[in-house]
């Protein structure tokens, strides 16, 4: 039985439908990321799971039982907010103890539980400090300890990394992942950052404009996106609008591309990720192109390549030291090519929000 299930979840605010019939399941012990641009409804979904927002329609089941009427304090969840606001009038230790305090747990038991958790997040020595003296990353770790102290098996994270410095965010991301695996927690992590979602999750749910667009294991969704939007949102993609010219062949701007399989329509949208395109290999399928711009990104270099009218971005860790104006050959391997039918309107797929 899934740990969490939503059935046709809907939320309407006056004129706006923020969440539009969302269905998904989360298994026990799974780490699931819900990812999408701002305004796509992901936070609203999470807040409905927590009971902080009431659904307009639809059901939420925990362990098979509907919770739609339950108040937040009765759902036994841990929740992390983006603005890691610890209670400013309580010390770090008192913050962590709060969940136990409101359940009238005996004083002796409270102390040991909060020490255990502060040790877990490596902040035991700060127990007597007030939040104002801690950095953002430290505060969020205290918030994590606070959320876990009640022993709840379900952790809901509402963009907990967004307000942090990059290094602190990356560190915390891995800490949350490791802690939750160690404690066997079920985690739902809402984020607008696709790299965060890909790196930590067992399952990723991609949302847009209130709807679930695709869900599945990160690698699957990344390599087999169901729409140009997903191909664009996760990682990055080059798009080519092409006309089919054969069994497994299409043409755009005078260049022929081999396709991985039979195309779904007469006109297709081809997509290939910048890291999958191959430069300067001696293969008859390669076509000629010119380097228009070189952008060094550190761990990789991005080349803006132009072949006839096609403009493509290619990334390679090999610093080939190509310069602007150099002639190159480019090949798009069919096995890495994503093909979409013309039911998709490319400009709509790529527009923000």
């Amino acid at each position: 039985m899934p740990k969490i299930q939503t059935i046709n979840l809907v939320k309407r605010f006056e004129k706006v439908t923020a969440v539009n019939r969302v269905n998904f399941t989360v298994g026990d012990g799974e780490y699931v990321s819900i990812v999408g641009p701002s305004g796509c409804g992901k936070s609203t979904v999470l807040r409905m799971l927590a009971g902080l927002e009431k659904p307009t329609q639809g059901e939420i089941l925990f362990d098979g039982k509907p919770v739609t009427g339950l108040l937040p304090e009765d759902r036994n969840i841990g929740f992390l907010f983006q603005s890691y606001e610890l209670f400013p009038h309580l010390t770090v230790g008192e913050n962590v103890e709060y969940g136990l305090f409101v359940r009238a747990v005996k004083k002796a038991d409270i102390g040991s539980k909060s020490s255990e958790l502060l040790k877990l997040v490596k902040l035991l020595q700060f127990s007597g400090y007030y939040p104002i003296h801690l950095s953002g990353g430290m505060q969020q770790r205290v918030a994590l300890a606070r959320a876990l102290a009640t022993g709840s098996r379900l952790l809901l994270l509402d963009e907990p990394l967004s307000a942090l410095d990059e290094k602190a965010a990356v560190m915390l991301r891995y800490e949350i992942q490791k802690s939750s695996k160690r404690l066997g927690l079920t985690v739902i992590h809402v984020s607008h950052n696709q790299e965060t979602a890909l790196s930590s999750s067992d399952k990723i749910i991609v949302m847009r404009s209130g709807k679930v667009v695709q869900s599945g294991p990160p690698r699957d969704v990344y390599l087999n996106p169901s729409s140009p939007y997903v191909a664009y949102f996760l990682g990055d993609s080059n798009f080519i609008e092409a006309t089919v010219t054969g069994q497994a062949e299409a043409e755009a701007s005078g260049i022929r591309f081999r396709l991985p399989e039979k195309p779904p329509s007469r006109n297709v949208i081809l997509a290939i990720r910048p890291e999958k395109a191959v430069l300067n290999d001696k293969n008859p399928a390669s076509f000629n192109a010119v380097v228009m711009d070189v952008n060094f990104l550190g761990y990789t270099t991005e080349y803006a390549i132009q072949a006839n009218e096609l403009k493509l971005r290619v990334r390679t860790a090999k610093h080939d030291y190509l310069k602007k104006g150099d002639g190159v050959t480019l090949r798009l391997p069919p096995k890495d090519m994503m093909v979409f039918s013309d039911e998709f309107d490319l400009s709509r797929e790529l527009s923000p929000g």
Partner: protein
Amino acid sequence: MPQINLVDLSAVEGVVEVKDLNLTIEDGLYTVVLGPSGSGKTTLLKVIAGIISPVKGRVIINGVDVTDMPPEKRGVGFFFQNYALFPHMTVRDNVSYSIRLQKTDEDLVRQTVDEMLDLVGLLDWADAFPNQLSGGMKQRVALARALARQSKILLLDEPLTALDALLNARLRSELVGIAKKLGLTVVHVTPDQEEAMEVAENIVVMKYGRVVQAGKEFDVYTKPCDPFVAYFLGETNFLEAEVCGEHAARFNGKTIETEVRLEGSHAVLAIRSEKIEFDKRGVNTLQGRVVNANFLGSLDRFEVDVGGQIVTVKTAKHTHRKIGDLVSLQLPPKDILAFKDKPEVEM
């Protein structure tokens, strides 16, 4: 001729300090000032603009000492992190504010502003108020407003930080495009090194109010002069080793060969995670066990336990490795850097 010069500059803003700073910002280039929060990068920007007066030192713009000049006379475009759009004015009035202060001809004002709005794609929203706009739109209004004055210097205080990741990524190239089109000198402040790497021509790395390293983006990345720079830009492994030769040091029982010269008895060898190769034959191979594996889309990232120390490896090559696997890592000598200490990092 360098366009902005900071000489022996010291300034304070609240708890953040800048100390004895010397910096040159090159004319016509896109310079990024990169550093963690509290490193003084925003303070630096505000001193250039004249919003903050320095305690010591001089600010020279285009050869003119402007240290005692108030902000309204410096003619520099400034973009605020939280946009600072005037809530009681429409988009058009916000953008035209600087021009209207000079009481120019109404039609000319309208034309200039419309051009600017068109450049950022907001012509249709000219009569809207800021509270009706989304974050991304507000960002573009703030940009248009800073550009309207047609100054050749543009100062951007974390222009992309408040945007969600998708919008952030899209707007990076737009910013660079506008800067190139208008031939601007840009100083762009950010704590995000990935953002910095994508937009910068020159990079200035700051920490605790001081410039740690400044130069061309490629040089700062490949030849960091301080462990902090190697740590903050990209992802780097730091291995403490005992020096046993001019180009050799012992780490974890193995001898590591380096191209750089080693001095003293003790060194911290640094190698970026994308430079380490799996299972490649050659010198400098280390054995370890995979303790963490993360899929990052275009890359895979692994944490490998090598004799008690965690080494991170990034690879774009498809690999079947998983947690628990025994692996062999190869560290190419040409990619190994050497420092005296590990970087000081806040937890």
